């Protein structure tokens, strides 16, 4: 196996299968973008379900939207956009070889991500206490719920609202899972950055983790209006 380890180049960051570092950079960035394509299609399946069911059950989706807290959702949107900023600044520091600042921005990103998850946990807990989690305990009477009882357009069978919450938990749950993975990734990268693994010559892992983080932010940019906002005024 020794031939494959030494063949190629003196550049330690250059892997043996590549001819030069430009080829390696193009290949790895394309690999990352293709991975994000698969993520788009992965969430795309759930967005399709959302589209179809929302049109089948507009009143139930209005009721479900009204039961969510716009304050929590908007706060989390701000937090996540902030984390995208810290991430982008982190990548910038990596490009410039600023080790300590890079670690700082990564930690800031982690903290903002954790804040998002904390708020999400509070929201989930409230849903559980209000019996808004799908399953045998689910109960949502649109004529009695304080959020919907005064909205004639938001009257729907409990079962239909349960569909809304099934989608809500599936979509925000998969999003939260991606956040957790992202935070894990950032923690490892912060540690490796602290140890000086990355510099001006080699920062691709930071850049690609950044792409992943921004993608997760993108999903939320759509989830927030779709789940929290657009059903509030009309059941269209």
């Amino acid at each position, binding site marked *: 196996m020794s031939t494959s380890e030494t063949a190629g180049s003196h550049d330690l*960051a250059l892997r043996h299968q590549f001819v030069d570092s430009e080829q390696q950079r193009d290949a790895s960035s394309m690999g990352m973008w293709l991975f994000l394509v698969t993520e788009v299609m992965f969430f795309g399946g759930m967005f*399709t379900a959302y589209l179809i069911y929302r049109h089948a059950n507009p009143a139930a989706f209005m009721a479900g939207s009204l039961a969510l807290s716009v304050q929590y959702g908007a706060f989390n949107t701000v937090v996540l956009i902030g984390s995208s*900023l810290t991430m982008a600044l982190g990548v*910038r520091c990596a490009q410039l070889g600023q080790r300590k600042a890079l670690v700082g921005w990564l930690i800031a990103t982690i903290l903002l991500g954790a804040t998002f998850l904390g708020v999400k946990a509070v929201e989930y807990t409230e849903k559980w206490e209000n019996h808004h989690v799908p399953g045998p305990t689910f109960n949502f009477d649109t004529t009695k719920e304080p959020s919907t009882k005064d909205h004639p357009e938001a009257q729907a069978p409990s079962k239909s609202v349960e569909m809304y919450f099934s989608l809500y938990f599936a979509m925000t749950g998969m999003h939260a899972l991606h956040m957790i993975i992202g935070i894990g990734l950032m923690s490892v990268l912060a540690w490796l950055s602290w140890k000086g693994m990355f510099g001006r010559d080699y920062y691709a892992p930071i850049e690609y983790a950044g792409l992943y983080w921004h993608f997760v932010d993108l999903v939320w940019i759509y989830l927030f*209006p779709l789940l929290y906002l*657009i059903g509030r005024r009309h059941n269209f």
Partner: protein
Amino acid sequence: MSSGHIGHVSPIRTYILIWAALMVGTILTVAASMVDFPGPMNAVVALAIATVKATLVVLFFMHVKYISYKVNIIVIVSAIFWLLLLLGMVSIDYVGRAFS
């Protein structure tokens, strides 16, 4: 062969401006959700704002505006195209059922 390659480094000001634009977008979309637009316009407005925000993130935070390997632009466009294909082709059935 050149070792290491620095991609485009944006000034901090650009990132702050984009961040500010995203915050404005967030405020706008919340505000728009409190207004009664006719018909489906609430959804259209919200999705339009979200798409503007998403575009800013992709172009500036994700550096697509300065991307060095142009093939990646085809990759990104095909992701959007195939997502719309999934949404659109499934919708054909449901729209059709509404007419049957």
